[in-house]
């Protein structure tokens, strides 16, 4: 690969030398001017109408965008044909952040308007005006059929009816007991500290001695066994005579004929049995279908209460918030508010499958209420 001639404009390195540095030089001029003149242009007044427009960076592609295709140019001579430029021009960017002061606005209204403008930095318009139906927008996928805000049963009121209260309490107690039973019935965890007796050096040898004794016994039994096997393994080999061979051949033929006859027999039997076979197949299909339907229904039922398994950790529902029987005073003022709604809302988000449960979310339930049903 020899040195390329200097006149060649192709290649990656060459084009770098061909970039115009006009805008950079312009900018440097302006910035030095500012510095020399004291930077007065950089100060920002509190309210100003920003009329400045950024210099649009001239890109190489803009030059070609303005051009027209040669074929179109040819056709231009024909007045019936309109020239279509190769692509649409870029729209001018408008400056959104200008704070404009309206005439006749007094202080408070300006403040409120600014407050709202800053709070939600969008101009409040009617988003849904004139019922534009944008059919391009795709249909929204609902992660789950569980409603966003589920109302608690009647027994969770601050002054509940006694029977409803008992119902709700029973449910809460059942949940707690389930957890306790799960823990008890599960396998016992490996203890961190194992019980062991201290064994002295003398006892150690005794332990080893026991093991050695057993080994010897096993060896002895094995040796005697191999002896008997060796005897059995060497039977006498006799020569196969012609008679024997013929006998074998005849037997083989018989067997083949019998096998064929059997096959034909089975075929006729199965043809006779055809309806029975069909019925058996139908039954199997029905069973399969039933099982499939059962599983689908069970899954659908489960989905009404839990999200599908979305991540590493399982979803854990919050416990039911019920008043204990002692706490039931019937007064709104004395209501002991123990739980926070933050946890409840977060749990609802998890329940609908919008948030993947993390290991922290199921761990500490601040509203656990162990209690005894009266």
């Amino acid at each position, binding site marked *: 690969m020899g040195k390329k001639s200097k006149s060649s404009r192709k290649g990656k390195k060459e084009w770098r030398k061909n970039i115009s540095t006009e805008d950079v030089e312009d900018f440097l001029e302006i910035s030095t001017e500012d510095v020399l003149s004291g930077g007065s242009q950089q100060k920002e007044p509190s309210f100003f109408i920003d009329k400045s427009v950024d210099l649009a960076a001239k890109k190489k592609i803009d030059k070609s965008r303005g051009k027209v295709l040669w074929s179109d140019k040819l056709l231009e001579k024909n007045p019936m044909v309109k020239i279509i430029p190769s692509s649409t021009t870029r729209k001018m960017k408008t400056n959104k952040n200008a704070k404009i002061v309206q005439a006749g606005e007094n202080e408070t209204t300006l403040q409120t308007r600014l407050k709202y403008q800053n709070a939600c930095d969008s101009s409040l318009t009617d988003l849904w005006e004139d019922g534009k139906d944008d059919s391009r927008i795709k249909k*929204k996928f609902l992660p789950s059929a569980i409603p966003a805000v589920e109302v608690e049963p009647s027994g969770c009121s601050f002054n509940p009816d006694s029977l409803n209260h008992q119902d709700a309490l029973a449910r809460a107690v059942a949940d707690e007991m389930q957890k306790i039973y799960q823990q008890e019935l599960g396998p016992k965890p490996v203890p961190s500290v194992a019980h062991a007796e201290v064994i002295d050096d003398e006892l150690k040898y005794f332990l080893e001695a026991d093991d050695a004794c057993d080994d010897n016994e096993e060896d002895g039994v094995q040796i005697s066994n191999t002896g008997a096997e060796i005897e059995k393994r060497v039977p006498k080999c006799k020569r196969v005579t012609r008679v024997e061979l013929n006998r074998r051949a005849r037997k083989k033929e018989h067997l083949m004929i019998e096998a064929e006859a059997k096959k034909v027999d089975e075929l006729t039997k199965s043809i006779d049995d055809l309806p029975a076979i069909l019925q058996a197949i139908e039954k199997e299909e029905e069973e399969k279908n039933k099982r499939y339907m059962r599983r689908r229904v069970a899954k659908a039922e489960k989905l009404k209460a839990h999200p599908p398994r979305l991540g590493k950790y399982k979803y854990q529902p919050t416990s039911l918030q019920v008043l204990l029987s002692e706490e039931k005073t019937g007064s709104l003022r004395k209501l002991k508010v123990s739980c*926070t709604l933050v946890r409840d809302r977060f749990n609802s988000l998890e329940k609908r499958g919008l948030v993947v449960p993390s290991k922290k979310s199921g761990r500490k339930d601040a509203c656990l209420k162990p209690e005894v049903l009266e």
Partner: protein
Amino acid sequence: MPKHYRPAGKKKEGNVAKYVTRSQAVKSLQVTLPVFRKLCILKGVFPREPRKKVKGNHHSYYHTKDILFLRHEPLLEKLRDIRSYDKKIKKAVSKKNRDLAERLMTRKPSYTLDRMIRERYPKFVDALRDLDDCISLVHLFAALPAVDSTANGEKIPVSRVHNCRRLSYEWQAYISRTHKLRKTFVSVKGIYYQAVVEGQTVTWLTPHALQQVLSEVDYRILLTFLEFYEALLGFVNFKLYHSINVKYPPILDPQLEALAADLYALTRYFDARSARLGSMTSGSDQMELQHLPSNELGSLVQITQGANEDEEDEETRECKNLFKNMIFFLSPEVPRESLLFVISAFGGIVSWDGEGAPFEESDQSISYQVVDRPTLGRKFLSREYIQPQWVFDCVNARIILPTEKYMVGCICPPHLSPFVDNEAEGHVPEYAEAIERLKAAQRKEVMPLPGSGKEDFDDPQSLVGIADRAEAIEVAKKRKEMATREKQYFDELRNEVKGYQIADTTVDNEPIHVDEERLDQDLRQREEDEASRGEALMGRKHRNILKAMKIGIQKKKDATQRLKKRQKQIKESEMLD
């Protein structure tokens, strides 16, 4: 040369092609995980469960198409820009260039969520459907303390909390002004409300004012949801306010705002608007607020009467007139915001103890004072003193309940949930029955003629269902009368035909012995006949389904019977003790 070129490792079809894990998605979008989470929440992209989890059970999977959709999202670019801008600020700060850092912070790029909301909810009805979660979360954050650092280092900025408060008050003001609230339920967790807006039922939960301890949850996620929901609620409020011709955002009296009486300020703003539209000529909004006459109470009553809504359905009118002409005063220990909202939503006028309130405690026209103390100091004779539960129960029952049971110092009857359909459950609590009887009594007062009621006497099922024994007996008496009269008529006709002379017999109406047992049997027999007539026409399948249904219903009935028996036993044992 190969015709189709697929990059090595890229699968064509199946679960592998359709689902990507979260880490794969983050890599392909070239963003960090927190930015990815934020984008997913704002865009409405959520993980799904594939049939076969190809990379293992411990990953969360997203649909490939969702991720591709995310890639063309302009918000992604904006978030990247913000990230790089943050880096500039950080650099300036670490180089101890405070001026530059401050200047940079004033010009920080930001994004708006209008397009996002418009994409996710193309119609207003869709937005209304999703309002439950939105309003609950906004109300929750309105009640939270603004902290600098929660458990996981995330801070809840004060401006956000104030914004939430403003939005929640605007929403409440709208609902109470247009009387769209239907049900309330006070539970241990908080207060549930249900309203009907443009045909959509919106149910939300507000915390009790007392709380709130911050628990250990991921606040970044909640704050992202909050951001989206704040924008959504802003736009929804805008549209709703415009539908009742009120300017949004409302400009409130700053004095009242400072006293944290936002809801009251909003109602006054509404009244000012409606008054302006009604009669007065246009002026600036600020002047209107000062023009209200000094007799606050009178003016408020006038204005609320003057505001007329043309499209109002039956229920709204009913709700509007529930607390009509009733004037409430709230003591400081009752939940003020909640009661303000509920009472004004049902047409009542309410004041409280404090600066800027419409009228004082000693005003003579107050008809009800809501207190929650064990005993009272001094009492005015012209007003009734009740506990706050009375208000909620009245609202749920839609009638004015008698106040004896709710007086100061009494233990109120149980607060029932209006969201539970008692007949469906099978067990109707006693207080619910009492309320039903009161309702029925009130309805009868309104309709003077029981005979002109809608009950169809020919349908025996409706007869059996009548709770009032006396009514049934009356109806049966009437029928018997009619029957005897008919018989008489036919006899006379027959006699005429036969040509006998009709003796002037004074028709003794024999005293109709109403044999109660025979009545019962008669009614039951007719009911059974009607039922079996329908049954005979069904096919076998339907009959079996009917049988199964009946068994289910019977089981439920047995359960309730058992409960009742147990209740009786408990009562008896209590009495014996």
